């Protein structure tokens, strides 16, 4: 993102403030209704105890103390972080690699892009059932493809369940990384490559000094989206593994939904949600600082 550098000639800052806020108003209103308001509800739940959601009794930080001491919560949090780390470790390098190898123009580029978006546009529930079916004996392609190698796809083993979920997430979302990186790479003028070729630069130095700097921003976007979405994954593991075997694939969102809707413990779920939100807030702030470095922001938006 490019924030405006100098003051606009002929427009004073008051007018800029007024125009800026006016144009932001619709978006702010929508986000207040669908973001701020529900989050305020969650914060309220986290500080109260309730019976059936009608009467609320102030309990202060009891719920927070309870969940921060609860091994189940720690375990679910660790599983979610682990799953995110696994998803990122596979999808980001693979996505960059495919994007670098993509043809720049022509029919094939368009064909690849269209075909790549199909998994992205597959509803998560379909993804879930498709990968469930893939792991069934006889009905499942994955099961039958592994069988001749003596590999018995046993979804009752935690390792297998994790690998299948990781494969499923890779299949579903790697193309997002590819598309974003592809878009980033397309913004590099051909002259840069020509100059690099004249200088006799190796593939690695082209990547290191020309492509990677351009990809930096786009990659942070991709990493952030993939981090958040894998961290909050719910539907797919719910369908494929039901959180099992045992609780080995019960991730944070699943734990939250179980607490809020099955046990109907709004206070505990609220406290979990607040903790989750604080984690994500820290990560995204770090991310934001990386995307908009200080040196640049000084001359731009932060100086205003």
């Amino acid at each position: 993102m490019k924030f405006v550098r100098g003051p606009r000639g002929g427009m004073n800052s008051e007018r800029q403030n007024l125009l800026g806020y006016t144009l932001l108003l619709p978006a702010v209103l929508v986000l207040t209704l669908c973001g701020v308001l529900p989050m305020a509800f969650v914060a309220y739940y986290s500080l109260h105890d309730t019976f059936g959601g009608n009467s609320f009794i102030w309990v202060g930080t009891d719920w927070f103390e309870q969940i921060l001491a609860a091994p189940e919560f720690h375990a679910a949090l660790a599983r979610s972080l682990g799953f995110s780390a696994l998803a990122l470790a596979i999808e980001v390098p693979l996505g960059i690699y495919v994007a670098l190898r993509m043809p720049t123009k022509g029919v094939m580029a368009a064909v690849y892009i269209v075909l790549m978006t199909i998994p992205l546009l597959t509803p998560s529930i379909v993804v879930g059932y498709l990968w469930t079916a893939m792991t069934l004996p006889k009905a499942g392609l994955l099961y039958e493809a592994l069988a001749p190698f003596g590999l018995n796809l046993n979804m009752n083993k935690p390792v297998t369940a994790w690998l299948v979920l990781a494969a499923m997430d890779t299949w579903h979302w790697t193309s997002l990384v590819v598309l974003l990186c592809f878009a980033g790479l397309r913004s590099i003028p051909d002259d840069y490559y020509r100059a690099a070729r004249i200088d006799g630069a190796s593939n690695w130095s082209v990547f290191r000094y020309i492509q990677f700097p351009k990809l930096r921003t786009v990659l942070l976007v991709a990493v952030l989206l993939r981090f958040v979405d894998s961290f909050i994954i719910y539907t797919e593991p719910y369908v494929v593994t039901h959180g099992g075997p045992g609780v080995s694939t019960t991730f944070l969102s699943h734990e939250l939904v179980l607490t809020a809707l099955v046990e109907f413990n709004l206070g505990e779920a609220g406290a979990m949600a607040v903790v989750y939100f604080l984690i994500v807030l820290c990560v995204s702030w770090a991310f934001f600082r990386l995307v908009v470095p200080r040196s640049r922001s000084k001359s731009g938006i932060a100086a205003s």
Partner: protein
Amino acid sequence: MNNRRSFAPAIYVGLLLVPIYWLFIMSLKTTKEIESSFIPYPHAPTLENFKVIFDDPSWYLGYVNALIYVVINVAISVTVAIPAAYAFSRYRFFGARILFFGFLTFRMMAPAILLVPFVQIFSELNLIDTHVAVAIAHCFFNVPIAVWILEGFISSIPREMDDSARVDGYGLIRYFRKILLPQIAPGIAVTAFFCFMFSWVEALLANGLTVVEAKPINGIMTRAGSVLAADMPLLAAAGVLGLIPGVALIVFMRNHLARGFSMGRIV
């Protein structure tokens, strides 16, 4: 990028298509067939599963319902995001940096967190089981993304264009309509694509906020899939039909999308 031919994208895309192929093949089989033997190609294909869906309004209306809220959501997201993105791109106003960050944090909230409050809020507003409820709920992740993508595209339009339009006596609204929007059309296409995608694949809120009238295909599939002996071929057929709107979107918008992605202005 390099001009050398490479097999990597072809292999990658090929692998992506394998599960899609399997989905398609399963949809043409019967339950008995998939349970009795493994045949990796359509053997005695049947359209029976598709017939079940097309004969039953409670099935096929699921697609209509999902499409309605997705389209409403994309319309809201893009409409409110364009002026906001323009403001972030062009004006230096107090707190812009914090606001921009604030917008992004909404993208990071989980549907699982917001489900219960959404149910309460939309019950108060009498909007449970309506398309509007789901469309508004999905805004929390789509509006930030839309602002973010559009900001990049608007920033790639030279500011001189604003100035000359102002000199020519264009007001802000006329400038938006006549000059800015046509210029960033590929950007709007890319934005709409992302919003469509994130809203179309989301299941938890879409399911939790609807009962019967606005029940999306996600919910119908969940119900059909949670019985003891789930009918996999039927679910596969429902899945194949669930791919169609997305694929149609890409095919219709392919030129805009290709231009948008190659403008390299995603960020």
